[in-house]
């Protein structure tokens, strides 16, 4: 609580300082605007640096996975590599194909970046340390993040290249399909937390609700919603189109998918947006399931008056970014039909079942006074329910698959020569 007062006092002090500089009252609109501008620029700076070093980290980490050293020439440990890359991107010639629709082509590259930055407005790094604590924070995150498919489709369409349009169509189908398990798996968490605000979701994982929660970690949602966590992590990997779900830009099949025709900084903007989204998704995974800025142990939350929320949030985010890179380093790419099948035939039924289970167990644990306030019992309850659910759903999916899916008729027909060759190729 002391830390909280300290922080509120310092926010008030900053307000007073800005108001003094501008010669206005402390509650004037201009002071609000100035504070918004400062926080926007701070977020932008942090995210920008984070993005630059995410590229460095990815190359270094993948290098180690593949028994290489990774970049090590520019600066010590290759630490200046991102800046060298940036200079290269800026000075490369920009080629627009003569066939392309110039306006849509350029607009696609510009519009793909803002959604990936705006989502950071709802990422909290401590009590009061959030740009804007929207009451619909998580919904805002999901909806803004999914608008990124429009510029992606614009890029593919505007390029007027067959590889690009195939990539764009795959991207839309994939992002749209994996959005369902992503949002459905989180409903269980929202139900237990009773809020959509990202700050509220973090505090719900502390002990005792908002206000008192600081520094007393309770149950992180990953412990009581492990299945939802796995679904969310996989669906998120697909949403940000990272390996093994990077079919829209599978270089072995369709060159680079929707950004085949882009060069120079316009290509760089797609990479930029993807790294921003990777960091944002890593942050969201840690907020929803790993307690956000809460420390794993109470005494680690702060040193004296200094709240370490930003440190824990950063550490967890980097951890998840590394998990995404680890996926990329170790898993082969899925095939297109396997990819769509995995979303609709495994993840969606599983997340529906998880929702039913959470609703039921949540009702039992919350309505009985014996259970509320007994984290270990709740944990046990959920562990048993999760295990049962996983087995039952997987069995049900297998059973339904065996009974309902027709054998691969088309392949058999194609093998028997019953389909015209054009259709076989498609």
């Amino acid at each position: 609580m002391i830390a909280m007062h300290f922080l509120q006092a310092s926010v008030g002090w900053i307000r007073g300082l800005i108001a003094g500089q501008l010669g206005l009252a402390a509650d004037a609109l201009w002071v609000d605007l100035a504070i918004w501008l400062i926080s926007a620029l701070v977020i932008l700076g942090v995210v920008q640096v984070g993005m630059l070093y995410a590229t460095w980290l990815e190359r270094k980490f993948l290098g180690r996975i593949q028994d290489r050293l990774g970049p090590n020439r520019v600066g010590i440990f290759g630490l200046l590599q991102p800046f060298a890359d940036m200079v290269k991107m800026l000075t490369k010639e920009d080629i627009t194909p003569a066939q392309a629709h110039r306006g849509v082509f350029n607009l696609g590259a510009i519009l793909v970046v803002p959604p990936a930055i705006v989502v950071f407005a709802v990422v909290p790094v401590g009590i009061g340390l959030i740009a804007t604590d929207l009451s619909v924070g998580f919904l805002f995150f999901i909806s803004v993040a999914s608008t990124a498919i429009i510029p992606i489709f614009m890029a593919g369409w505007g390029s007027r290249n067959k590889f690009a349009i195939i990539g764009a169509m795959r991207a839309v189908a994939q992002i749209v399909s994996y959005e369902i398990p992503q949002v459905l798996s989180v409903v269980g968490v929202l139900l237990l937390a009773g809020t959509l605000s990202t700050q509220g979701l973090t505090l719900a994982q502390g002990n005792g609700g908002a206000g008192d929660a600081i520094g007393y970690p309770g149950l992180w949602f990953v412990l009581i919603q492990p299945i939802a966590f796995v679904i969310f992590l996989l669906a998120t990997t697909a949403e940000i189109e990272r390996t093994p779900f990077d079919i829209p830009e599978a270089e072995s099949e369709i060159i680079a998918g929707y950004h085949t025709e882009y060069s120079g900084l316009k290509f760089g903007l797609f990479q930029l947006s993807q790294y921003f989204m990777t960091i944002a998704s890593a942050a969201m995974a840690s907020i929803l399931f790993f307690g956000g800025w809460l420390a794993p142990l109470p005494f680690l939350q702060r040193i004296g008056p200094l709240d370490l929320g930003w440190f824990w949030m950063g550490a967890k985010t980097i951890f998840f970014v590394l998990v995404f890179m680890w996926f990329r380093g170790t898993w082969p790419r899925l095939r297109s039909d396997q990819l769509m099948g995995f979303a609709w035939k495994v993840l969606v039924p599983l997340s529906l079942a998880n929702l039913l289970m959470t609703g039921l167990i949540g009702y039992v644990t919350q309505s009985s006074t014996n259970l509320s306030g007994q984290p270990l019992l709740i944990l046990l309850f959920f562990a048993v329910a999760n295990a049962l659910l996983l087995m039952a759903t997987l069995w049900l999916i297998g059973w339904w698959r065996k009974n309902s899916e027709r054998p691969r008729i088309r392949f058999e027909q194609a093998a028997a020569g019953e389909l015209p060759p054009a259709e076989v190729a498609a």
Partner: protein
Amino acid sequence: MSDNWGFIALFSLIALTVPIIGLLAAWLLRPHRPGPIKQTTYECGLETVGDTWLQFKVQYYLYALIFVLFDVETVFLYPWAVAYNKLGILALVEMFIFLAILAVGLAYAWRKGALEWV
């Protein structure tokens, strides 16, 4: 809890300036020497045959339909999940019925082969 949509508006504008400033900087720095060969559509070295803006495969529409169905479902699920503690057993049962109908719909689409990517 303060819903600062004003901040979101400002932040969106600032976010939009990021790619624009970048592209302006690149425009000043980069060489500009277009050529007819350079500007051909990137393919295997030959001219592209046929139009690129073709009709879509029907499979995309089938997935889009199922997607819309489930996306609307989540619109109903989110308020329910947030107000879950205050609603009691009746809302839980109602939501189970709602989910059961959707699950049957998914199973039907599955059986009909709408989920097959062919």
